């Protein structure tokens, strides 16, 4: 794929499958990690999507017996958990890894080793979670895992939930710290904060939210873990525990989580719309301000998920007002996008179709969010299909549209080949229409009294027609995703080769280098002179960035298998803990768990003792590589 710069400085490994595998298992290159995240997340997205299809098949007709009771609960739990933690989050990390270092003019991320570790932890966390299907049943407490159902009443599946998320969450946290430091410390000369591309800004704030939200989840999961495995009493009312504690902890994490998801999508939309309108982003500074404000407010509103818990009208209204306030900065963004389009020269390719489709769809989900923020009205909406409709509008119609837009937009940069536009447009329209068919009518189902997480509804409750429509819509989405898979395969074989400035109107730094970028990204660190640095240079009649340094040797980190080994050891530890819940094998299982933990720390020690000197790509090699580019 990328030009291989190893040849001189690193001993060449035997070619063949194993060296290929080794390369991917041990890579610390952010561009390769991006691809790993993309395919890892993609795998789980397909699994989560299949689970969604199972849900829709069960609900297509009343009193269906396709998936009943506990099995249905397993499927919705795994659908929600998989989609949020194992599909959406890694997709976001895929784009972060692929784009952020390039957008800020950096050769790498701050901690390449940690970056790889983050990926492998996420991936193994996902594996742990999904192993539950084969080892005694999946978690069935909903993705919110309310105690005491999750802590006392459900079986082994919940242990997979707890440990899978714990491992994946640790990976996410590391990734966030890595990108925070990268953005603060590794910007090219002249790339001030107020010149950062908006995607980088949104990722920065997302990483901040991760940093402060995930530790709460970590604690919450530990509490459930201790309740389940060591008979602690956090949620055990008989010994003085309190199940509402879990709800608070979960949502103190959970609400910021939904903005963690949507902010990068906002960033993608900002980039794509500006690029394909051939205009700079309207109101850049207010966009930045709005992003920060959303990030701040994200921590002040979580109780809107708990209006019906009975916290009393004072708490409810305070949090209601705070929730409504988020509509204001979000609105600023919406209108700024519309006015970026305004007066532009808009190209409608697939990337931009998704971006443009995002706007009305997300607003639709956003305004139902504001409706939900009215506490006494939420007493009616809560845990009904109205909520399901709301969050799929913001998540699928917002986040997934944004991510797909980003994939179509940056695919050429990541892989050096374009995706096919015709297939892309079929994909978009199928997905767009299917999406609205699936979820629009769910608003009415909710208002008509259909609660969520119901594995069935009765004949004569009047829910039949809308549910059927919804299922049909889901099938359209299913076909849309198949088309997308075909497109990816097609592109890999026959896709049009991409130029460095793949869309010919790229504005930011990533378009100033080859597609895919060489291992070292920038032969010379660019000098940034303003917002939309590359566009600026092009307007000045140049086709390359002004360099901030002469060509020289480039220092690179060496690859390492240790991150992979570390996540394997945590997987072993997790499985040990999970099986320690079975009476017969408690002792040996705990022993395995301990061994896993020890192994993990040994890996850490090894890493600490052996400094990574890295290696250099020599000047001549760089010049040679760059020649082939244009």
């Amino acid at each position: 794929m990328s030009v291989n710069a190893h040849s001189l400085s690193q001993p060449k490994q035997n070619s063949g499958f194993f060296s290929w595998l080794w390369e991917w298992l041990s890579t610390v290159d952010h561009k390769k990690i991006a691809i790993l995240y993309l395919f890892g997340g993609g795998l789980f997205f397909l699994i989560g999507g299949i689970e969604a299809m199972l849900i829709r098949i069960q609900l297509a007709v009343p009193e269906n017996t396709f998936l009943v009771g506990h099995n249905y609960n397993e499927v919705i739990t795994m659908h929600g958990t998989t989609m949020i933690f194992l599909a959406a989050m890694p997709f976001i990390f895929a784009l972060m890894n692929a784009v952020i270092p390039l957008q800020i003019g950096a050769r790498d991320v701050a901690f390449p080793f940690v970056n790889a570790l983050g990926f492998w932890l996420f991936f193994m966390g996902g594996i742990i979670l999904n192993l539950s299907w084969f080892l005694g049943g999946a978690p069935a407490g909903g993705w919110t895992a309310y105690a005491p159902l999750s802590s006392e009443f459900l079986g082994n599946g919940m242990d997979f939930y707890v440990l899978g998320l714990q491992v994946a969450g640790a990976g996410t946290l590391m990734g966030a710290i890595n990108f925070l430091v990268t953005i603060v410390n590794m910007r090219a000369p002249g790339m001030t904060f107020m010149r950062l591309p908006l995607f980088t800004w949104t990722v920065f704030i997302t990483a901040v939210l991760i940093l402060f939200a995930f530790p709460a989840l970590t604690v919450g999961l530990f509490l459930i873990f201790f309740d389940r495995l060591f008979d602690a009493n956090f949620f055990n009312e008989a010994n003085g525990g309190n199940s509402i504690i879990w709800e608070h902890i979960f949502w103190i994490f959970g609400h910021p989580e939904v903005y963690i998801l949507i902010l990068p999508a906002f960033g993608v939309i900002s980039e794509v719309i500006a690029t394909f309108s051939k205009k700079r982003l309207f109101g850049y500074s207010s966009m930045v301000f709005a992003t920060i404000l959303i990030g701040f407010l994200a921590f002040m509103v979580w109780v809107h998920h708990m209006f019906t818990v009975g916290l009393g009208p004072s708490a409810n209204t305070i949090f209601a007002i705070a929730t409504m306030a988020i509509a204001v900065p979000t609105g600023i963004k919406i209108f700024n996008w519309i006015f970026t389009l305004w007066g532009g020269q808009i190209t409608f390719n697939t990337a931009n179709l998704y971006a443009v489709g995002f706007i009305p769809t997300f607003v639709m989900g956003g305004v139902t969010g504001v409706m939900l923020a009215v506490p006494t009205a939420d007493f009616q909406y809560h845990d009904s299909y109205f909520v399901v409709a709301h969050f799929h509008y913001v998540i699928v119609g917002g986040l997934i549209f944004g991510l797909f837009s980003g994939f179509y937009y940056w695919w050429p940069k990541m892989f050096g080949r374009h995706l096919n536009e015709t297939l892309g447009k079929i994909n978009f329209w199928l997905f767009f229409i299917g999406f609205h068919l699936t979820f629009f009518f769910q608003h009415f189902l909710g208002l008509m009294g259909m609660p969520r997480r119901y594995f069935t509804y009765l004949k004569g409750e009047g829910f039949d027609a809308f549910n059927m429509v919804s299922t049909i819509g889901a099938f359209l989405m299913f076909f849309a995703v198949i088309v997308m898979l075909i497109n990816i395969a097609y592109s890999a074989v026959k896709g049009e080769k991409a130029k460095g400035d793949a869309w010919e109107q790229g504005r930011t730094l990533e378009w100033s280098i080859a597609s895919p970028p060489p291992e070292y990204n920038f032969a010379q660190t660019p000098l940034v002179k303003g917002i939309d640095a590359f566009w600026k240079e092009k307007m000045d009649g140049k086709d390359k960035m002004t360099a901030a340094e002469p060509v020289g040797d480039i220092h690179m980190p060496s690859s390492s298998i240790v991150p992979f080994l570390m996540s394997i050891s945590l997987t072993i530890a997790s499985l040990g803990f999970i099986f320690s819940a079975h009476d017969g094998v408690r002792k040996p299982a705990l022993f395995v768990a301990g061994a896993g933990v020890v192994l993990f720390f040994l890996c850490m020690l090894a890493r600490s003792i052996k400094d990574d000197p890295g290696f250099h790509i020599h000047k001549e090699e760089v010049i040679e590589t760059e020649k082939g580019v244009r």
Partner: protein
Amino acid sequence: MKKWRLSLRLFPLFAIALLLSGCGKEGLSTLIPMGTVAKEQADLMLFSLLIMVLVMVVVIVLFTYAIIKFRKKRGQEDFIPKQVEGNAKLELLWTIIPIILLIILAVPTISKTFAHSDTHVAKGDDVIKVKVTGHQYWWEFEYPDQKIKTAQDLVIPTGKKVVVELTSKDVIHAFWVPALAGKIDANPGQTTSLWLDADKEGTYKGRCAELCGSSHALMYFNVKAVSPDEFKQWSKDMKDGPSAPTTASAKKGEQIFKNNCMSCHAVGEKGGQTAPNLSNFADRENIAGFKEHNKKNLKAWIKNPGKIKPGAEMPSFEDELSDDQINALADYLFSLSVKK
């Protein structure tokens, strides 16, 4: 408050739109409210919907105009649009207008939220208090003032304020009667409350709205609103208990019941408290909260409750009792009426 009442006049428009798409079934839908709380909630829902439709219209009009007017036209490929940085006035405009809209929404939000949470009412004739306990997967209703215990069917008088106090014996459940009022959670070890009333006599569907296990979806109950007089009569009858069985089969059933079922179920005062009280079983609307109320379903239930409600706490009696015995049990249970 007056202001938003005024704008309610515009609602026929939206009401029509909603009607076209179907409001759902009477007695089940939040859009056909039958009690004070549900009505005010529906008003508030529609009022907020109005604001949201306004926002949507503005966004969609601007958006559609922009993407049609400014799409790339043939022959202008080299055109480079003006690189506008922003516009302070416009940006201020779309900061302030949403704030105003939200303030308009916040006012009724606050007042109604407080009003609907106000369950601290003086004891009196006009207030009925019910203690509700959620169990996996059934509802227990206790009237502390009337000293009655029942299950699955909540009987209330029309026109009176009913204060519901909730708790749970196991996991978190939520009590929801869409046509009468919004929901509130039943938390183990803690008490929450809500109030509701019903304008009209009739049966309203209630359901559990918090994931509580395998049969969360089947944790239905009924709210039967009757006239105040009827309610008084009913509560007196309930205290007297069901009339004794008369037929031979039912008497036989009573015996079987005593031997097999009393450890969990109570009839009248006597019996276990871990399962629904069956004193007025024959007067119920449904079996197990949602199945049609007939002997066939009852027998199926006794034979294998888990088949009807996955994960139900009641054991299967398929192998314990013969068909004859189950027939007798059914006769007995169908004789359990407090109606005179």
